[in-house]
């Protein structure tokens, strides 16, 4: 699924496919999926729960660009779909769209954490809306997803300073080690 780097986006899409990157990304995806199920979803928070997958996808997309965001979103979504009850592909579609759209932005996560928080808020809300829309279309009921939306977005924004800069730093490190 990963595509060769676009020559015009060399600064962003540098060194797209290599072992270290895929390994780290896979590790991050697995960690996000497992922690989401084991820890985040179990903490009884009022209103809803943060979504680590959205944070990861936004972080990767901001740091590494559209293709990386698209791929990470799709793969993360597929894994989460396989571990849940809804049809496989729903979360993959949502997160792939989120990764793609965020990757098009120019908000560099290295400088300030403010823009990433705004992006996370919009991305989380958008992803949740798409998920609710597909669930409703499939007759699985998207109302529950919408009920938790405000609280989930708020929690995602609160967690942004702890996730997005870490992802950006890892991306930077992988990129510099390649040179």
């Amino acid at each position, binding site marked *: 699924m990963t595509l060769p780097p676009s020559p015009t986006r060399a600064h962003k899409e540098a060194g797209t496919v290599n072992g270290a990157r895929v390994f780290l990304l896979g590790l991050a995806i*697995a960690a996000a999926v497992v922690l989401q199920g084991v*820890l985040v979803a*179990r903490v009884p928070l009022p209103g809803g729960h943060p979504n680590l997958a959205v944070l990861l996808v936004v972080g990767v997309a901001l740091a590494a660009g559209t293709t990386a965001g698209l791929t990470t979103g799709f793969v993360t979504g597929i894994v989460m779909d396989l571990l849940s009850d809804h049809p496989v592909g729903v979360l993959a579609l949502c997160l792939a769209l989120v990764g793609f759209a965020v990757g098009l932005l120019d908000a560099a996560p290295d400088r300030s954490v403010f823009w990433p928080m705004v992006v996370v808020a919009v991305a989380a809300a958008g992803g949740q809306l798409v998920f609710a829309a597909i669930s409703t279309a499939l007759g699985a009921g998207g109302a529950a997803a919408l009920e938790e939306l405000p609280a989930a977005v708020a929690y995602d924004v609160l967690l942004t300073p702890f996730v997005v800069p870490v992802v950006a730093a890892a991306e930077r490190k992988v990129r510099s080690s390649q040179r």
Partner: protein
Amino acid sequence: MRRPTRRQRYALIALVVAAAVLITADYQGNAFRGLRSGAETVFGPVQRGLAAVFNPIGRFLGGIPHLASNRADIDALRKENDALKRQLAEQSLDAARIRELTDLKLLAGLGGYRVVPATVVSLGPSLGFEWTVTIDVGSVDGVKPDMTVVTGQGLAGRVKEVGRGTSVVVLAADPGSIVGARVAGSNELGLVTGNGTAQMSLTLLNPNARVNVGDRLVTGPYGKSTYVAGVPIGEITAVGGDTGGAGPRTATVRAYLDPTRLDLVGVVLKGPRTDPRDSVLPPKPTPTATATPAGATATPGGTPTGGTGTGGTGTGGTGPTGSPPASSPPGRTAPTGGTPTGTAGNG
């Protein structure tokens, strides 16, 4: 905002189409059962392992918002626990009460006594020197001085003073109390004297009378005895030496009831028309002649029908064990109310 390259656009379209295909396939035919179980196999152990680590943390974090209410919950549960414990204790108390009342009715029924049930409300002012108790029935209940007071086990004492709603009872264990007694079976007569918590002593009228350890005593028609006849007193535990007719023969008697553990008693308002003889005695452990139901005449003709005489009335020949009460025992209010609901009269 940048424009996506053509390649990225194609990639997006490809993945969206792929996702749509996956959704359709899975929605229609659950096509990914194998993949799902595969993912479960890969992530399951990791999830379980991490859950063991994180669950306590999660529970702790989750408990923080509820700390105050948790404390309130604990308090409430503790209170409930105490209440339940108390209830349980009261219930066993009630059960004991019911048993006592049943015994009392049984005795009243066997002897043909008319009994008003009463509860001991206070012990005498100088318990130890003078063995008296105060009970919660008095003249309004028909209690008069010198009436016999019994429990389900046997003789308790006699009424000494009567107030309007309470009476003072001198226990048979009082050192000054002398009860005319008859040895069941042999019909030897004697006097039983109280000794406090120690065993009572029996002085036989006939110096040459033969009594044995284990012989049982009932109140007997001696002289102008104020006690109604036939109430069980106790068992002989030791017989004094033979004085050869020179002095009175003595024996020690273990009373059937413990004078320090009185709760529910009955005042015999009216004795039987004829002496119930030995019929009221508890069945003897060793089979002897004294167990014969002499009380076939105990409840003559007039089978006690008054009141709620359910306590095995009219079954003088069967013995106490053979006739459990037919009706359910009264509730806890019955004995304390002092009302003559428990009478088993033969009049």
